[in-house]
């Protein structure tokens, strides 16, 4: 096995509050191999976006990595200082966000924003950086790229803005791209195009991808492996095919069963419900956080946290009943 691009090990992230600290990520561990796509899946509040921010060193104030390491090609980002992170971010690791309108700067042209990345990280002259920005717009299949270069974000459609974000993110040919719900704000036909673009860029640049999503369909389309997260903890790790064919954790089973499925469609069958809702992280007991919503849970589940156990090679689950 080759060395992973990214190795997250035992990462715990805490939010400081007056009443003490709340753990928003708990003992998270996963790796991303070169060129691989790993999906982080779960509902809102499960900690998937927080994981991305922890990797990028962009955690909000009063939230910090309390334990564990995040190694990018061996270098621990959790302990890196601001200067080191500034050097790495946008160069060896970069990120695209859900809403490209708020992530782009409204007062600079698209060309200037892409060029900035190259001037800062590659020391290109403004003219050279702009020329390279044009190439990048071509690489992300934007129509009429020379004209777009001079446009402002508000003049572009949502799909085009996301392409611009992607162009900025891959400008320095990063080892790892983190995509946080990259298509949630887009229409489905445009989403399909963005997925195709991400697949194509990955192939051409050989970069690894972390896809953050709530959509199991998107996971199946893009990812090689998936980490299912619930209430700040990874509850199941598996290759995507296996995860969808034979999910072990009751939460994963629920997430797959609650999608209206038209292919194997018996439209009259009720959708699987996951009753209740995501628990308050500050009020989680000692046991499994999913126990209150789980049909299989018993006293043991509520009393003791299930450890992550290997079910099959590469397939790990944290559940007493799996």
């Amino acid at each position: 096995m080759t060395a992973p691009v990214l190795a997250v090990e035992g990462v715990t992230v805490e939010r400081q509050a007056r009443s003490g600290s709340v753990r928003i990520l708990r003992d998270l561990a996963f790796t991303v191999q070169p060129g691989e796509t790993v999906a982080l899946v779960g509902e809102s509040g499960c900690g998937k976006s927080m994981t991305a921010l922890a990797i990028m060193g962009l955690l909000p104030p009063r939230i910090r990595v309390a334990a564990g390491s995040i190694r990018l090609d061996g270098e621990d980002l959790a302990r890196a200082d601001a200067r080191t992170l500034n050097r790495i971010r946008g160069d060896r690791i970069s990120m695209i966000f859900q809403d490209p309108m708020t992530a782009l700067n409204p007062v600079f042209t698209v060309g200037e924003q892409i060029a900035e990345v190259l001037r800062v990280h590659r020391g290109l002259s403004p003219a050279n950086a702009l020329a390279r920005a044009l190439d990048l717009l071509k690489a992300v299949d934007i129509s009429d790229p020379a004209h777009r270069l001079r446009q402002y974000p508000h003049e572009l459609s949502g799909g085009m803005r996301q392409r611009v974000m992607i162009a900025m993110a891959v400008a320095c040919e990063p080892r790892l791209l983190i995509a946080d719900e990259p298509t949630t704000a887009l229409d489905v036909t445009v989403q399909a195009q963005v997925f195709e673009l991400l697949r194509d860029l990955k192939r051409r640049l050989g970069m690894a991808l972390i896809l953050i999503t709530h959509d199991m369909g998107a996971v199946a389309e893009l990812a090689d492996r998936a980490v299912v997260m619930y209430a700040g903890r990874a509850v199941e790790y598996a290759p995507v095919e296996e995860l969808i064919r034979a999910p072990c954790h009751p939460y994963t089973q629920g997430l797959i069963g609650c999608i209206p499925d038209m292919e194997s469609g018996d439209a009259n069958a009720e959708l699987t419900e996951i009753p209740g809702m995501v628990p308050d992280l500050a009020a989680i007991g000692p046991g499994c956080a999913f126990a209150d919503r789980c049909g299989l849970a018993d006293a043991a589940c509520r009393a003791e946290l299930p450890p992550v156990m290997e079910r099959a090679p590469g397939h790990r689950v944290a559940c007493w009943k799996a």
Partner: protein
Amino acid sequence: MTPPTAPLLQVDGLSVEYVLPATRAFGHKRVMRAVDEVSFSVARGTSFGIVGESGSGKSTTAAAIMRLVAIASGRILFDGERLDALGGEALRRFRRRLQIVLQDPYSSLNPRARVAEIIREPLDIQEIGTRGERRARTDELLALVGLRPEAGRAFPHQFSGGQRQRIGIARALATNPELVVCDEPVSALDVAIQAQVLNLLKRLQRERGLTFVFISHDLGVVHYMCDQVGVMYLGRLVEIAPAKRLFSRPLHPYTKALLAARPSIHARDRVSKAAGAIAIGDPPSPTEIRSGCRFAGRCSAAQAICRREAPLLEPKDEQHEVACHFATP
């Protein structure tokens, strides 16, 4: 009396126009046709789904059926009556028979009103029952959507998104409507919560014989909820068919593109997507509509005639209508 087989809702050549502000001072105001000559009918006790992307006019169609926006032309028949011709007091009284569930349960509930007041308000406006009866009805409605009676005393912000949508559903059912228009009722919710709300809507429909007009951008949701489905693109209905039929044998290239684009958990088993099936480019803005078929610019099968002449929505057979010069299975 209309015979029982007559549709509960019949929309006939409906158009809705919005006037856009002039781009220059003293310039001409432009008119945008958000809904253009849309016709469909919904049988009592069934669900009619409308799918489409943003800007397709599906929410405007919903608003027009509810008489919340002005209608430029066309007729809306509800149980044989001209809903589009009603006004004033007659319209107000009629409204108890049709209600709407809105997309965003965060902005569609008054943050300053208690839940019981929110649910009771349609009864107050319609002057249905005595005060005591209204109170009892409110409790009954809370139970119906799976909320405890104590919930009535709380404010909307004390609830999660899924619970708020239940409150919105309870409000819509307060007057015992025959038709409920659901405008993207689950798209603001997490997937696990979506399933709860969809199952609830389906159960309510079964138990009370409700008729739904169900609007969504999610094909899976529409497939699950609806008997009959219409696909909208830039203000036009481009295809209508029974749900099963539409999704297994779509005829319009846009419907095919939507189906091909939908991320599926069966992505791995699926034979590789036909390259031509994915729509090209972004949907154009509804303000920049050219002549001919509106999908022509993104369609891989488009010919010269498509850019010249807009195809009409015509029946292919008894069940299936499509608007395409080259519709093939």
